[in-house]
């Protein structure tokens, strides 16, 4: 089931929302342009703001296959692009030997064929799936090293991979590429230049509330409002790692699991580990601070709740 590409920014917004992703207009514009211009989308932002999710939602919404490449240090072509199936090749050689067929040229051209090729994500992404190009998600590109980035330049420019034994493999239709980075180091300008750059920020209170209501339907309306108001206040504080949307959702789920209908300082203190992941940050939320934040969040939720 494949959906045609959306025709304008509003259509992108609607399509994403239909698949439970509430994007702001800037992000929707970037996505629209990336689809329209056939350029990779480069998403940078804090952890847990929904960078990876956008690729998943796009694949789902457009009915494409999602090919995910999780980056790590030392990622090489053998695990990112292709590898030869060595055991099978070895057996093939032994078989040829047993049958007495040891024509050297034939053997070499025989074992380096597509039959023995293991396709890794990038090569998979160059192939059509059900007649459509897949969505290629290159996740956390900042975790790899510069040599892989340099390799990626060729792939992103030509949508082509060169295998010495087989020759160049070129995509009939370029995949939809989404690259994410947590900014643990700066990605080289040459990569960014080829992409549409978008900084994914924390959501506004209104958008976050919509996300919580959609993703944690079990949460009481008032609790959701309080949770969002509280998290938004935490983000305004001077924390080492501000909670992302993923943490807000975790926390809301935790509170639902504890059957809470409203926030209270004690529950907050007990469940803070779902929101904050650094001991210093948790230490900064003293009982007094927690009490004050809860009071403010409740007041705000109340104000919004009674229009």
């Amino acid at each position, binding site marked *: 089931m494949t959906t045609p590409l959306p025709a304008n920014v509003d259509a992108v917004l609607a399509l994403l929302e239909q698949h439970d992703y509430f994007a702001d207009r800037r992000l929707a514009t970037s996505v629209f342009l990336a689809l329209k211009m056939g350029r990779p989308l480069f998403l940078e932002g804090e952890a847990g703001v929904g960078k990876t999710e956008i690729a998943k939602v796009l694949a789902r919404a457009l009915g494409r296959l999602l090919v995910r490449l999780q980056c790590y*240090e030392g990622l090489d072509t053998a695990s990112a692009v292709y590898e030869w199936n060595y055991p099978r090749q070895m057996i093939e*050689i032994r078989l040829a030997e047993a049958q007495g067929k*040891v024509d*050297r040229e034939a*053997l*070499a051209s025989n074992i380096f064929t597509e039959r023995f090729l293991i396709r890794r994500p990038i090569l998979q992404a160059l192939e059509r799936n059900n007649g459509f190009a897949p969505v290629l998600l290159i996740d956390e590109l900042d975790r790899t090293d510069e040599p892989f980035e340099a390799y990626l330049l060729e792939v992103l420019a030509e949508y082509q991979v060169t295998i010495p034994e087989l020759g160049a493999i070129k995509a009939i239709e370029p995949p939809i590429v989404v690259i994410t980075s*947590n900014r*643990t180091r700066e990605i080289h300008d040459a990569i960014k230049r080829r992409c549409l750059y978008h900084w994914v920020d924390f959501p506004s209170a209104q958008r976050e509330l919509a996300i919580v209501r959609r993703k944690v339907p079990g949460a009481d309306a008032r609790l959701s409002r309080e949770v969002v108001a509280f998290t938004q206040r935490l983000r305004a504080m001077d924390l*080492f790692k501000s909670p992302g949307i993923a943490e807000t959702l975790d926390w809301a789920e935790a509170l639902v699991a504890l059957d809470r209908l409203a926030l209270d300082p004690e529950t907050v203190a007990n469940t803070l580990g779902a929101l904050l992941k650094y001991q210093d940050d948790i230490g900064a939320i003293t009982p007094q601070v927690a009490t004050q934040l809860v009071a403010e969040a409740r007041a705000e939720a109340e104000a919004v709740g009674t229009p």
Partner: protein
Amino acid sequence: MSASATRLFQRERLAENILHFCRVLRAAGLPVGPAKVIAALEAVETVGIEQREDFRAALESVLIERHDQQTLFAQAFELFWRNPRLIERMMELLLPKVYGRTPRTEAEAPLPARLAEALAPPRDADREACDQETTLDAAFTFSPREVLQSKDFESMTTAELAEVKAMIARLRLPLPELPIRRSMAANRGTEVDLRATLRAMASARGAVVPLAWRRRRRRPPPLVVLCDISGSMDRYARMLLFFLHAITNDRDRVHTLLFGTRLTNITRHLRRRDVDVALERVSAAVSDWAGGTRIGACLAEFNRRWSRRLLAQGAVVLLISDGLDSDVGHGLSAEMERLAKSCRRLIWLNPLLRYDRFEARPAGIRAMLPYVDDFLPVHNLESLKQVAAVFAQPRSLRRRAEMDFELGRRAA
């Protein structure tokens, strides 16, 4: 050689001028040897001197090798070929016989320091130390270099500083290389290279072939330098900036931040190859030269804004500071702890350590010392070299510098 040398001297004024121009460039630090002088003459002969631009381009194409030499060449060219009075003066200056006779006049335009030095060599007593060509010749400057190495940056004359600058430019930091998750073909490797082996098998018609091997590559870790530029560090800061410029351009993955009362990332500015251009940009970018120090606040800012971006891949941190904090160590210890925990190795370079009776008295120093892995002096060339030596020696376990420091004190 002798034929070309005679040819060289047979040329009249132009040839002489080009020769002197080349010597000026050489004195200013460009590697212009006799071969290049001859090439320059040939180039000028070929292009002619009718068009100033052509003439300039001809000289430039022959005499410079790298982009960063272009600025210096341009300045020297403008000075040399536009101002005849300056040429005469300089010719007098450069001819050994009239050496020292010429009064030192002020040039009309402010000269870049290197050019000014090249055009007017020092006239004072220590001329022997600086040979008439400022380029350092190992045979002639061996002993002065020895002297310079142990001399404090603070007590150096301008001439000595210039020489130290040249030496620093050649200083290299041998960071110990770390194994990375990439491999390369190697005869005595640790992993079997299946691909290469199979290819060999295929072409050996299925006969037994020796295994091909691969081993892990190694590369130096990223280096992050945090340098204090407050009032108490002012005198060292200039020399240290030359040092920072040298190590920033020596390899990739070096990041440099300056701090006094606020933190400034100057990596991009230092990437300029020409040291004068780089330092000009740095001084334009930094607003808190020689002011107070708020080490704690600056480290906090570093930890919050930069550490996750710069310290990700096992970075080594070089902290250059005297540890005299006007905030009196407020929150300093916690920030140091975080910094130490998020990097591979934390090395503190402190110019105060040159004093024999240095004691870790000030609150700032006491707060920082427990978290550093190495604690080293940095007040002269010798100490900069020591830093290089410490980098070269690998340490499997983090040893706390405070321990070394206390043990050393007790032993003394």
